């Protein structure tokens, strides 16, 4: 009986050790033959390649570690924008899918079935190579909203110029902390006295008023730098000032948003449908208003169904953002596993670091999710 338990485990262990041993041995031999030594020292050396789009200061004289950071930040930027937009779009489409209006329902269903069944890579290529290439040249671009230009080279928008931004930012954080404690206080008060405070409006007022106050007394100021077209030579133009959003970022965000939103919409629909009609009727019968029914009865239960698969979609979006490499948006994969690897030839270390980064993000979010799931799970008696 004991042998039956131990033998399979020993065999598994042996198999794993053999495979890893075989690979490590070969890797050592191969790297030795190429005069490479395993190690991460190369991260400190000068990268000497340029990156088109970067959120932090970077040029060729910085190190590979800095290039890695640039790539990572670009990946996180796309993931962050994509997640926010996909959530908004997904929630709207998911609700529209259940609308009593036939046209709305069918449009939502059409959108979902259309974008879900086309490979994401194809969509990215479509937006980048076909749709965005049809935009006007710099000099012909019409002005949008009196400030921005949508051109073939990207979107030029006004850039905010802050003075004393840190004061403003600190106030926002302080406002959030105040709101957090206020919400707790309001909840306790309701439990004790049965009185409901208008939590939402007061929170909103705090959130808007406190930062606005800094403009008056904190010395914070905001002005805009508008993009202005300038002719460089006979046929070449450029924009001075403003903020340039590269077309790669637009295409990638657009494709990721439209693709992921279809899945989120289906999750939202399933969540709302998953709640029994009795819940709504019971809530209405004890005298809750329709808004209260939605806020206090439907949403808390629907979110319990919606959130776990939606987090999965967020993870997928983050992982799918690596397709950026296909249209040369400088994300982690392109910058690090592409350019940096070509230059250094350190395949094992670089692919290893790249995978480990994605793995960390994924596992981190998974752990967070498990914790959250445990917290909101219905406590059965």
């Amino acid at each position: 009986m004991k042998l039956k338990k131990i033998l399979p485990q020993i065999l598994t262990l042996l198999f794993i050790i053999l495979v890893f041993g075989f690979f490590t041995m070969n890797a050592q031999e191969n790297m030795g033959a190429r005069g490479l030594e395993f190690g991460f020292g190369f991260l400190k050396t000068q990268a000497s390649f340029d990156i088109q789009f970067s959120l932090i200061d970077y040029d060729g004289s910085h190190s590979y570690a800095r290039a890695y950071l640039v790539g990572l930040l670009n990946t996180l930027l796309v993931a962050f924008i994509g997640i926010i937009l996909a959530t908004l779009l997904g929630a709207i489409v998911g609700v529209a899918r259940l609308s009593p209006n036939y046209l709305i329902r069918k449009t939502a269903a059409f959108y979902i079935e259309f974008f879900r069944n086309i490979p994401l890579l194809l969509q990215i290529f479509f937006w980048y190579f076909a749709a965005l290439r049809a935009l006007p040249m710099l000099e012909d671009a019409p002005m949008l909203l009196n400030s921005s230009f949508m051109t073939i080279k990207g979107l030029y928008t006004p850039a905010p110029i802050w003075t004393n931004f840190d004061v403003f930012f600190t106030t926002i954080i302080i406002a959030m902390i105040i709101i957090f404690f206020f919400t707790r206080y309001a909840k306790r008060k309701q439990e004790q006295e049965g009185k409901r405070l208008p939590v939402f409006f007061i929170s909103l007022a705090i959130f808007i008023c406190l930062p606005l106050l800094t403009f008056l007394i904190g010395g914070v100021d905001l002005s805009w730098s508008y993009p202005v077209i300038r002719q460089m030579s006979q046929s070449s133009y450029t924009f001075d000032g403003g903020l340039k959003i590269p077309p790669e970022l637009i295409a990638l965000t657009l494709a990721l948003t439209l693709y992921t939103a279809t899945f989120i919409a289906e999750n939202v629909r399933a969540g709302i449908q998953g709640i029994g009609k009795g819940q709504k009727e019971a809530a209405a019968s004890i005298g809750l208003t329709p808004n209260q029914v939605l806020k206090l009865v439907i949403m808390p239960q629907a979110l319990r169904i919606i959130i776990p698969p939606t987090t999965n979609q967020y993870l997928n979006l983050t992982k799918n953002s690596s397709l950026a490499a296909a249209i040369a948006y400088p994300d982690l994969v392109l910058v690090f596993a592409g350019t940096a690897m070509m230059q250094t030839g350190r395949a094992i270390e670089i692919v290893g670091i790249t995978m480990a980064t994605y793995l960390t993000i994924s596992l981190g979010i998974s752990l967070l999710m498990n914790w959250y799931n445990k917290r909101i799970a219905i406590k059965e008696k």
Partner: protein
Amino acid sequence: MSINKFNILKSNHHKNRNISLILGVLFFSVGIIDFYLNNYFNTNITSFLPRIFNFFTPLIFGVIGLHLIRIEFSGIKILDSLNKNINTTNFNAALSVSIILLIIFGLPPLLNWLIIDANFAGDSKEACTGGGACWVYIKVWFNRFMYGMYPNAEQWRVNVTFIAVLVFMAAGFFVPAKLKNYLSLYYTLILPIISFILIYFIISGGSFGLVWVETGAWGGLSLTFMVSFFSLIFCFPLGMMLALGRRSDLPIVKYSSLSFIEFWRGVPLITVLFMSAVMFPMFLPDGTYVDKLIRVVVAITLFEAAYTAEVIRGGLQALPRGQYDAAKSLGMGYWRMHVFVILPQALKLVIPGIANTFLALIKDTPLIFVVGLLELVGMLNLAKTNPKWLGFSMEGYVFAGIIFWIICYSMSKYSQKLELKYKTDR
């Protein structure tokens, strides 16, 4: 009803019915016609109105029209169902009108581009004179999109192999009842071997008088099918083992399966393909060369096996404990219990999940361009850069989009049907 709150001009009364009906239809038509003329004939019939309204006139007229015809229990069947479906409140009416206007705005140009102004005849770029799509481009490049760089004269070999594999796959449905027990064995072991032999000898060639065609020349849609077919077939048994391993009581087996699954699920496919392209050769003894296609199939198999394992685990968990207890009480061991009692039931439950995994797999195959294999999307990008055919990327992507959409949509509908069919109430 809450609808009544919004009805300012109450038109419930029978006497007023016809007047408001006529007025409503009139307003609605004016809105639609105004929008239509505005868009396609550049004339504005409502220009006498103040400028600020002008942009919204079609919407405002449409909503007023729908508001007027919103009559409860009008006695006209069509009107009642119209009101019930698209016209319950003013807000709903506004949404409906917006969608109708959007269709008027978008559909005719789209149809013009796709069909009416498009060019179908001819076989060179010069034949494309109309303003629409140039389907000649697709026609000329069709063979490349389907078969990649595979020599034109040899393409029948790909067709023959695909038909043969399909026949062998279908054969499973017609076996006599006596052999039904061996069906899973057939699909997981014998069919892959047969297909591999067929592909190796017919598509790859090199013997029986067939010319050798290297895997680098394979491509197009046929490569998409080949990669996804083999990855699916191989990832299934592996995923099953991993799922069983993850539910095992033995700690080493359990945690090694768990870490394997979590590892592959945590990384993007593109890095896995990078790994197979640049990192994997470093792990092999010097001088061994594994074909690029095989490396890709192995990489995708390992990747998808992790997802399949999670799907199968879902099926295993859905089985009630009683099934395990009953099997054990009959004196069955671990393997006999799983092979004869647990897996047959669990696998039936996970068929839709497997179909979804396969769908994701097909949508992921275009990624193999990172290692230099060109399936349909990769071929499009290659054709796009051909100096003779510059400027037709839109047609190419639309074509590929339609093909992938048909494949994926029909599969997802089929898997939904299966889900209903295999639903067993417990």
